């Protein structure tokens, strides 16, 4: 992949994974899905191609939010739920930075829910990696807003009584322009998705289904286990038909306004299979993809949506530039002496 060329300065030399490995001991539990995410990021960043000093990682609080310590970039470990707001400030103040957020399902969807929907609505150009382990890891195992209904956790000894958020659906409900979903055992795909996220102008939301081996182990077993995963996962590739299955003999097709699973050669032919177009602004289809899940459907992974819309940060700079061109207040002395002023001699 080529370095991304936009207003962020690219590195004059080619960077390697090692350039981004920090000297801090990684303190996640052995076997935690986060290790793989870390590695995917360290792989993706050199390929993105920006100067290494131009990366900033912002986080909230949670296991996932320890992330900035483990990547050798500028980093800001914030407070619980506020990473999106901090990152907004970083990006607005300095649009020349490539701003990333690492956050958890609790951090972004419980306490941080408001900043989550607003950063998306505004389409600020930040890239968000949401470690969704369907649990509060750092505080040792309470349910989160993504914990499926009925799950027994420390704070729901009789099972939860609330539906969980579907992250993609909420992102689209908040007018998101970029949504991708990856599972933590797919480092390659993740690294690719991160590259596309970086390339996207606007808020890129990358949900990673991340296994918490300690407090919610095997939550994604059906998606990662060798036996079942191929039938439960649909890997989306732009402009490719949505085909999946161990034998790549199943696909997704339209039927009466709904998506259905069809068997190739049996109840459908290749032409019936929907082709994935993440860059076409098809809100309904993209939402349906977000909502599809086993057992009825395979779970789509990859970039589900990436559509164009002006970014908040660009427009802010534009308004300032326009004001600078047109206003005759060019410095504070001008301002102080503007309007109704009189002189005593």
């Amino acid at each position, binding site marked *: 992949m080529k370095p991304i060329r936009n207003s962020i300065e690219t590195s004059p030399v080619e960077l390697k994974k090692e350039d981004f490995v920090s000297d801090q001991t990684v303190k996640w539990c052995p076997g935690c899905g986060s290790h793989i995410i870390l590695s995917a990021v360290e792989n993706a960043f050199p390929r993105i191609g920006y100067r290494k*000093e131009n990366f900033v990682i912002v986080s909230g609080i949670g296991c996932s939010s320890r992330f900035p310590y483990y990547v050798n970039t500028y*980093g800001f470990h914030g*407070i619980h739920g506020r990473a999106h707001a901090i990152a907004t*400030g970083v990006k*607005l*103040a300095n649009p020349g*930075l490539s701003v990333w957020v690492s956050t958890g399902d609790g951090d972004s969807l419980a306490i941080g829910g408001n900043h989550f929907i607003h950063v998306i609505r505004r389409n600020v150009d930040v890239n968000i990696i949401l470690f969704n382990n369907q649990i509060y890891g750092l505080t040792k195992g309470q349910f989160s807003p993504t914990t499926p209904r009925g799950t027994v956790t420390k704070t729901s000894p009789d099972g939860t009584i609330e539906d969980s958020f579907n992250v993609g659906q909420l992102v689209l409900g908040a007018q998101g322009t970029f949504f991708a979903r990856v599972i933590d055992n797919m480092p390659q795909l993740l690294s690719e998705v991160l590259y596309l996220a970086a390339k996207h102008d606007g808020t890129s939301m990358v949900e990673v289904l991340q296994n918490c081996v300690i407090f919610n182990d095997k939550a994604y077993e059906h998606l990662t286990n060798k036996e079942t995963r191929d039938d439960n996962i649909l890997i989306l590739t732009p402009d490719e038909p949505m085909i999946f299955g161990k034998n790549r003999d199943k696909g997704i097709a339209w039927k009466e306004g709904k998506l259905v699973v069809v068997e190739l050669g049996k109840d459908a032919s290749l032409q019936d299979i929907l082709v994935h177009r993440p860059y076409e602004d098809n809100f309904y289809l993209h939402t349906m993809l977000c909502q599809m899940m086993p057992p009825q459907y395979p779970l789509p992974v990859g970039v589900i949506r990436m559509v164009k819309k002006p970014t908040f940060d660009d427009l802010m700079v534009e308004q300032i530039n326009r004001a600078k061109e047109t206003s005759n207040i060019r410095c*504070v002395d001008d301002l102080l002496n503007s309007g109704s002023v009189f002189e*005593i001699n």
Partner: protein
Amino acid sequence: MVNEKESVVIKFAGDSGDGMQLIGNIFSDNSAIFGNDLATFPDYPAEIRAPRNTVAGVSGFQVHIGKKRIYTFGDFCDILIAMNPASLKANLKWAKKGATIILDEDAFTAEACQKAGYSSNPLNDGTLGAFHVIKAPITSLTRKTLEKFQLAPKVADRSKNMFALGIIYYLLNRKLDLTFAYFEKKFGKDSLATETNKIVLEAGYNFAENIEAVESKIHVPPAKLEKGKYRNITGNIATAWGLLAAAEKAGLQLFLGSYPITPASDILIELAKHKSLGVKVFQAEDEIAAITSALGASFAGALGVTTTSGPGLSLKTEALGLAVMTELPLVIVDVQRAGPSTGMPTKAEQSDLYHALFGRTGEAPIPVIAASSPSNCFYYAFNAAKIALEHMTPVILLTDGFLGNGSQLFRIPRMADMPAIHPPFAKPGEEYKPYRRNPDTLVRYWAIPGTEGMRHRIGGLEKEDVSGIVTTDPLNHQKMVELRKNKVLKIADDLPSQTVTGNHQGDLLVVSWGSTEGVIHAAIEELLQEGYPVAHTNFNYLFPLPANTADIFSHYRKILVCELNSGQFANYLRMCFPQFTYLQYNKIQGLPFTQVEIKEAILKYL
């Protein structure tokens, strides 16, 4: 005949829709250009358009103009304009005995009187016996004046305020030309609005002249102000400009993250107008996003600022702790209003002091500064930013609704004369450690993301001294707590000495802080003239306190702390200087002190 006066207080009062704020402002500007010193204060209801003719719906604007220095917007008024019975009802208690009261006679219908809570018509029942009353049929004369334009009565009535203003211009012996020019600038030279406003203003003036409304017109000669350029400015605008000035002086971008709240919104609104100065204004989804985005902006190398009032400050509490831990520059402006909780949003008091000083979990010292006049908001905002930037710390700037909405003459400084601001940028080439400090000031160095060779990570967890690595080492924690505290205490080295007005030792020292300075100063000047052995010191730097504070206190037998709360500063002084005894005078009514109250309080202890 013209009667010269040292100073005059005028109160414009009417229904929320009557345009009192507008004529108050026009008159103030006119006075400023005329050369009077002045102070103003608007006083409007919480409701956007409270029901007509009710006391709750009265909107007021008070102006104090003078030949002498003006320190307050005045306790009691010499002239009261009351556009309806409710305005009279709400304000008569603030009129001096013998004051001139201008009334819109037409508005004093039986119904309106009753709605205002009068059982009989105050125009006729002797209520106004002690005053000089000018009954003017303002409504009908305004309509008549505008007859030829064939406006709907509703539309014509919008000009009533100009008729009232015309009367005032006559009483104060003012010319109309500058105001005509103002209309032309605002509405366009040939617009209908310009024409109608001019003609009604003139009609009011002529009316007063024709009926010989007063025996003698009043003349308040220009004040002997220091040479220089001046303008009338509100505290909120001065605050906004002070921040812009600091950013320019530091060579940094100003970033404001804010969420609207009365009475602080005007700072946000003002800054949003000045994009040409490069300021980035982010109206956030709430106060938490406001402060954290500002902190993010500071991390990214800007001067991060957030502005709010009490309920919003509460919400910023957690992020204040993060700012302390990350040791980033950040200015938090709190325009205090009457609390607790939603309280009385359009009224002010000084009761957020406790929160500013102590409202954090953990050991989290933050410098606290208070402005004390609308115009010095400019300088204290500037200094708050200077301290934040030079000492790498959040700084809380306290103003309040009186300061924020009130206005005053402001002598325009030249940016070249403003002090320099030197943020402690990390030196390129040197090995960077995020918590390495300047040994003198204990200030850490600032490495801006994007800078080569300085990648680092900061955050809210306790960090190892120098290296910034996360650690729970016990002695390191104690050390870092102390470093953070001592860093802030060392700011006192940079502060100007605390000064005293009046006797430099003796019986009684009156202590105040923030917006009560003006009224207490005025009271003290009077008492000194009357020969009382009093002194006054007003604090702008609250934490740390100026180094000579205890020394000053030690020269007086009694210390009287006056504040608009239940004694928060007094209690704080008890903590800081337990060796002294503090008397208190407190008021918690959503109103400022009056000069009379202060004098009485002082005399009680003399």
